[in-house]
């Protein structure tokens, strides 16, 4: 079972809107649950509360991924969060399959969190015309990725907030890790997006 809050949903959406012609990826953070039991519990609950957009364009170079993950880990420790999901949008419009890059990064993410989910973006649904779902949620179960869309919850207001921020051109303000490395005054935590969300009346 998994749930995503408006902040995480909107940041992921804005990342896609900023680079419509490129492959993009990023991670989703969830609150750290008490992990005294080590078993991989496929019925565990993932609550995505934040999103850190990573890269756009070329996603398969490892050095900057290592840097990004180390910083995000450090950020997570200060907030009792953990990397619980990885989202990936392919460059090709109609390709929704996880490629080698997605598989490799998921391996790494699952080393630290075996319950982590793989979120593959469906580019054809990103216009949010038909509803809120623009991605497929996969959990690793029985040596395969199982589609768990049916047990994934998205709040109604997420879609409205996403479209509202898009209209205000907030996608141009979104910072991913690549932007940060280009100029470190760009803050990959995107506090300004959170502020924008709070200024929406509903």
């Amino acid at each position, binding site marked *: 079972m998994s749930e995503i809050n408006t902040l995480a949903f909107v940041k992921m959406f804005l990342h896609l809107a900023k680079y419509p012609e490129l492959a993009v990826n990023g991670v989703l953070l969830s609150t750290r649950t008490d992990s005294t039991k080590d078993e991989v519990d496929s019925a565990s609950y993932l609550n995505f509360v934040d999103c850190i957009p990573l890269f756009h364009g070329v996603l398969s*170079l490892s050095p*900057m991924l290592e840097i990004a993950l180390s910083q995000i880990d450090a950020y997570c420790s200060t907030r009792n969060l953990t990397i619980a999901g990885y989202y990936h949008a392919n460059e090709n419009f109609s390709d929704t399959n996880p490629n080698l890059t997605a598989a490799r990064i998921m391996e790494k993410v699952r080393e630290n969190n075996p319950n982590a989910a793989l979120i593959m973006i469906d580019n054809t649904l990103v216009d949010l015309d038909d509803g809120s779902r623009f991605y497929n949620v996969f959990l690793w179960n029985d040596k395969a990725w199982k589609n768990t869309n049916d047990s994934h919850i998205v709040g109604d207001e997420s879609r409205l907030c996403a479209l509202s921020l898009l209209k205000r051109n907030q996608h141009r303000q979104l910072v991913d890790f690549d932007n940060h*490395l280009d100029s470190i005054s760009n803050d990959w935590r995107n506090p300004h997006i959170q502020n924008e969300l709070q200024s929406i009346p509903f």
Partner: protein
Amino acid sequence: MQSAVEKLRKYRDENYRSHDEIIEIWTHVLSNRNLSSLGDEKWLILEQIFKSALHCSKQSIARQCFEQLEKKFKKTSRRVTTLNGMYFESIGEFERAEEIYSLLLEDNETDAIVRKRQISLLKEQNQIREAISQLNSYLELYQADQEAWSELCDLYLSEHDYTKAAFCAEELLLINPHNHLNHERYASIRYSQGDYEKARTYYFSTLKINPTNVRALYGIILTSTNLALKTLGTNSKIQNSNENNQSLNEQMQWAREQIMQKYIETTPDLLPIIESAIQSLTL
């Protein structure tokens, strides 16, 4: 209107990809105006709006611009015909687009732009291997085409073929050795392959050209750490390796200080996270 025209000019010259903004400018400012006062620039603008409209799936705007271009330059214009091909690409009619491009190439097989559009067609249909093969053939003829080498590099990277990607990156280095981005890209590809020595060399050469390249500074930290770990694994009683490790350590500290300084100057509240992160990497 003048500022809109200037903005569009800037976007054309500097290859900006803000297609949604360009369409906004068109819809709100320029589409109702008479552009004849701009002279020849009118046609450049129409072409630019056409391409951005395709990017934004605004086919009707694209069609409007196209009709004006076709009227002016007639169906015999290769440039206009190529645009027509791009239109069919954008609506997914790949066969029609391919027909147009093949015909253009029959007429003039040296047309590099059309050849590259054919390769884009392959990419759009997710025929990456074919695209790589065609692009290789293209580059045998047009060896100095940086855009093509860069595209081939990206295609190889998407297949995780780091060796061939490195070869493309090397070609780019040869063509333009003064671009710090070329050095950094090459270093990162070598790092991804596990060749930390080479990666380090080129992160340093990046910094020689541009001392503020943050990726290169981080690259020094990563490569120095990995190289130090490697020598720890081997016989560490050798005098050389101790000296080596010391200089690796010094350089890593230097890079670390450079990075810290930058964060202090620009985003100090990220500093604790950065410090903690670097520490976890270098342990």
